């Protein structure tokens, strides 16, 4: 549904987005994740048709956001960062106005406003002035405004910035509900927001796409690789090589595919080894267990460290920074 092809955006000498290519299918919920100043808002604003790429092109359902901008915009519901609203208007008047900008009239407009109010749970505040609402409600009004013409694509720029934890939870749950029947792009620098609401994560750092995939896939392919094993030599058995049993075990780790090993004393005669596999997705648990028992060591713990999305995110950013 959305195709970004080699998109670059420059502001004078500063490159905000560099050669970004991305395809997003219908019904996907995609999170653009990156630190502040990474290029998320620029990418979002270009996709919403508010500014052109310096190079490359963006298409929404076959409509170029520059050459065929009005048709592309008709398919988009957009919530800008910090949710600008006309604070002097009443909620329902504001939504009627937003609907009229999208061509909704008469019965269609009334139904669209009622539907959006219903979906965003704004019934009890529909006659109140926007300026008198809490930040959480204002965010919902912004979301309702983006939903009025029932667009197949929702673009939400930092939808929970500035909200308290309860409001953040409400907005996340609302985004989850809205994503059941449309494509959603959410930008955020808050990792749990993206992790909890999106099927797919695109990590952006310094204008470049650093990682792209389902959170679980990113963790499996980009993170992890470390194993922890705690061992203790069995009493009364001598080392086959004449050295220590632990020394023999460590000697076999390279052959198993380990790239680095750190050992520490776990107390009471136990030694804790952190074994990092040469390949990030390599599972060494079975090999480690066999090697340890073969060398006459008892095992009380053997685990493969699961990387969090946060580690993937941080390593993507650090990779770029280094």
């Amino acid at each position, binding site marked *: 549904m959305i195709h970004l092809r080699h998109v670059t955006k420059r502001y004078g000498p500063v490159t905000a987005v560099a050669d970004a290519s991305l395809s997003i299918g219908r019904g996907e919920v995609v999170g653009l994740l990156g630190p502040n100043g990474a290029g998320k808002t620029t990418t979002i*604003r270009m996709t*919403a*048709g*508010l*500014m*052109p790429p310096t190079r490359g092109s963006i298409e929404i359902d076959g409509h170029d956001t*520059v050459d065929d*901008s*009005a*048709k592309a*915009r*008709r398919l*988009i519901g*957009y919530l*800008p*960062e*910090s949710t*600008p*609203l*006309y604070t*002097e*208007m009443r909620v329902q*008047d504001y939504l*009627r*106005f*937003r609907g*009229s*900008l*999208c*061509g909704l*009239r008469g019965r269609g407009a009334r139904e669209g406003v009622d539907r959006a109010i219903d979906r965003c749970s704004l019934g009890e505040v529909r006659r109140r002035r926007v300026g008198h609402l809490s930040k959480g409600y204002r965010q919902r009004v912004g979301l309702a*405004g983006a939903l009025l013409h029932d667009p197949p694509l929702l673009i939400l720029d930092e939808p929970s910035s500035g909200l308290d934890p309860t409001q953040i939870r409400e907005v996340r749950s609302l985004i989850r509900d809205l994503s059941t029947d449309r494509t959603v792009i959410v930008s955020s620098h808050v990792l749990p927001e993206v992790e909890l609401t999106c099927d797919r994560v695109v990590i952006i750092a310094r204008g470049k796409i650093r990682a792209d995939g389902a959170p679980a896939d990113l963790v499996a392919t980009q993170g992890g690789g470390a194993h922890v094993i705690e061992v203790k030599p069995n009493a009364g058995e001598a080392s086959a090589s004449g050295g220590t049993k632990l020394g023999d075990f460590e000697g076999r780790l390279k052959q198993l595919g380990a790239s680095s090993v750190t050992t520490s004393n776990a107390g009471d005669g136990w030694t804790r080894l952190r074994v990092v596999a040469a390949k990030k997705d390599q599972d060494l648990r079975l090999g480690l267990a066999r090697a340890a028992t073969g060398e006459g060591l008892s095992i009380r713990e053997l685990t493969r460290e699961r990387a969090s999305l946060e580690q993937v995110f941080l390593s993507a950013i650090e990779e770029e920074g280094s």
Partner: protein
Amino acid sequence: MRVVGSVAWREYASFFRTSLGWVVMALFLALSAAVFSASIQPGEPATLRGFFSVWWALLLFVAPAVSMRLFSDDLRSGTIETLLASPASEASIVGGKFVAAVGFFLTMLAPTLVFVVVLESLSDPDWGPILAGYLGITLMGMLYLAIGLAASTMTSSQTLAYLGTLVVLILADILLVQASSRVGPRVGQVLLGMSPNVRAADFARGLIETRHIVFFLSASFVALAIATVSIQSRRWR
């Protein structure tokens, strides 16, 4: 056209939801009343000619106050993004805001009809010059508001929009007239022709000339076209 209507209605209503609209209207009416009372002298003919000939000077300061927030406020608050991300065209958004500003201006003018009623109760005024005067002030107001609207598309600061409009209007109304007397007669005529208040003076005298109407309407159109291009250019940056 429907977008024009809904943008116009929202913008028109917002003049009355903010204190600025009421303050501008109160100021305009108070100053207008002062000009009216000063222009009526015992024993003089019952006309608004003196009133109309001074009234345009009030517009110089009042029209920019009406137009300064039209786009500047959207640029400051960020609501310009919701306007531009919608499928509505820039021309219809500009048109809607212009209609709202003219509507507010006409609403401001409406209470001044009391002056006509007062004049009617005192004597038997000639209606032709009064109608011509109102037509002139309306056309002049439209042009000033269109210029102010164009200025407001260029800055998120209402103060800058006000001052920018004021500079352009002073340039057109005062400096052009002064410059016209210091250059050759042909260039002087051209400069005078570009000055709105010189043309409005004919309306104040009761003359309705088509060329003046065409001037005000086409100059307003040019200012609105500049405003539209200015808003469109935000998509090109």
